[in-house]
């Protein structure tokens, strides 16, 4: 008697697809829907991990688009300190779909939306949508507003002219203003602002809410640029801290599972949206956690290389002619030697990733 599994490819079976090849020889993890070409203008936004993707694409000669470049003369380190060249525009990390929608509202809807700004005791001003964008805040409210307007304009121009928009979902946990509903980029009082339990509340966003927000964001992107294609990823970086009341490990599992499910469903439903499994490549048990630094949170360089190796390899496999037949540079899949070293000093992440979330760690209770 025959059954539907008999005609399935080897990739459908754990033994042939995973157990036998092992972590260093996995193939076909992604079946890309559309080609990503070197000639494409690619925009990256989202959570910390999106920074790696943009950098890796640029390093391999892809057209990663910097819509808000650093002003002339800034050294690379200075530019990074002021959050230039991290994402395609100076939004800082966009951890949630709702935050992406807020930025899109500023870029394509009401430029005056979200009028809340913070002033500290020294008269410095901070943007609640990106409180760490200037390390010492802005000199005036006017300067803070003008900088936000410039970023919104850069986002608008990037979306209107891009071919590919890569968005990395990071968190479900968020902090919002009770009265206005505005979501903050980080919990108040961590990097800037002052927490007031009467005005600010914690919200662990649910599946339906995130799905709706992400669909709304994609609708907006599509309206602005009918040719735009969207690649979703989920950040493999665990939560620094949770306000959910759960253990941070289970809270991380919950958050990432919800985000992964939303991304997967939307990619199944919408032809212009694809899901690239960078999350699985870093987190799956088959890789035995080898891509994490000893803190089991930071992703080491080998992990990023492996992720991008899969990205380019699968693109080459499905769309071999996409770059005129030229294959991407041989970004190695994981090499056992490097992977082994990743648990030692040599393989540690250099903390190149700029993460507001890191601020939480600085405020954790001390032993």
């Amino acid at each position, binding site marked *: 008697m025959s059954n539907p599994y008999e005609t399935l490819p080897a990739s459908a079976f754990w033994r042939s697809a995973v157990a036998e090849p092992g972590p260093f020889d996995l193939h076909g993890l992604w079946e890309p829907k559309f080609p990503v070409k070197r000639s494409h203008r690619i925009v990256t936004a989202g959570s910390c991990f999106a920074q790696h993707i943009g950098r890796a694409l640029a390093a391999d000669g892809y057209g990663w688009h910097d819509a808000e470049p650093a*002003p*002339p003369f*800034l050294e690379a380190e*200075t530019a990074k300190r*002021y959050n230039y060249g991290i994402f395609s525009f100076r939004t800082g990390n966009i951890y949630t779909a709702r935050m992406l929608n807020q930025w899109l509202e500023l870029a394509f809807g009401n430029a005056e939306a979200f009028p809340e700004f913070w002033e500290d005791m020294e008269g410095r001003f901070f943007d609640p949508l990106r409180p760490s964008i*200037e390390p010492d805040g802005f000199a005036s409210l006017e300067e803070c507003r*003008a900088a936000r307007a410039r970023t919104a304009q850069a986002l608008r121009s990037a979306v209107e002219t891009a071919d590919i928009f890569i968005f990395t979902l990071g968190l479900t946990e968020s902090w919002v203003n009770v009265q206005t509903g505005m979501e903050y980029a980080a919990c108040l009082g961590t990097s800037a602002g002052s927490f007031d339990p009467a005005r600010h509340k914690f919200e662990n966003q649910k599946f339906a809410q995130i799905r709706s927000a992400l669909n709304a964001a994609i609708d907006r992107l599509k309206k602005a640029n009918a040719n735009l294609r969207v690649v979703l990823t989920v950040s493999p970086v665990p939560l620094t801290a949770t306000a959910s009341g759960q253990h941070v490990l289970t809270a991380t599992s919950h958050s990432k599972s919800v985000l992964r499910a939303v991304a997967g469903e939307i990619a199944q439903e919408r032809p212009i949206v694809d899901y690239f499994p960078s999350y699985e490549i870093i987190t799956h048990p088959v890789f035995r956690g080898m891509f994490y630094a000893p803190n089991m949170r930071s992703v080491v360089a080998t992990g990023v290389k492996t992720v991008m190796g899969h990205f380019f390899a699968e693109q080459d496999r499905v769309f071999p002619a996409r770059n005129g037949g030229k294959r991407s540079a041989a970004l190695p899949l994981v090499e056992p030697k490097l992977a082994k070293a990743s648990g030692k000093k040599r393989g540690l992440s250099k903390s190149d990733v700029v993460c507001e979330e890191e601020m939480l760690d600085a405020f954790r209770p001390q032993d």
Partner: protein
Amino acid sequence: MPSARKIKRICLFGDSALAAYRHALTEGLVQLPGIEVEFFGAPGPSFRSFESLNGRIVPGPEALPALSLVNGAGRTSLGPDDFDAFLFIGARLGAADFVAAHIHLARGSGLPSRAVQEAMAYDFLIRVRAWRFARDFARHRPVMFIPTPYPTEGILDLSARNRLFAYYPRAEFATVADRARAWQMLMDVSQKSGVPLLAQPDHTVTRGVLTQARYATKDAAAKEDISHKSPEFAALMLQNWYALWQNRAKIDA
């Protein structure tokens, strides 16, 4: 900040921009009463070989012949205690680049925050070796820096590839206010490190960030030389420096 009161000997340190200053002094276009002047430097290619060694500016071997000619007093290195004050001239500090970039931003997408502008200015200055020399010397003696003047107009097409207006086209249409704001930013940041900059007088400037043709060096058009200026220009800058110095000496007194 070291006092400006007792300046009897000053060193003019720089690259080939020193030539106009030498002419200005020897031709009597400017007087610096009571001040003895000595030159120390070398033209562009060998100027790059100067480096800081144990707090002194020392030439590389390739700069020694030119230095011997420029200095004429047998001095082979320069320390902060060798003179009462130092005037850095040209010395690869092309302020036009910063000013033009700043104006281009201001007249286009808008200037970044003041903090970012200050970072731009600092990163611009710190990569100029002579500015770092000046900063180090300023801890011991009064120092002032006259950056390389704006390019001279009418000699080259500055909108051509890799030239100033190709990078910063909006700078050509700068107003006096645009230019003053850009210059002030650079000056403030340099001053914070103890290195005041001496501004190019506005009446010598044209087309946003260019120097008027009347201040061109001799045969500038034939040599396609947009950098070097006339002895008259150098005299003007020295007069301005001297007036500032006198004023400061009065304040210190």
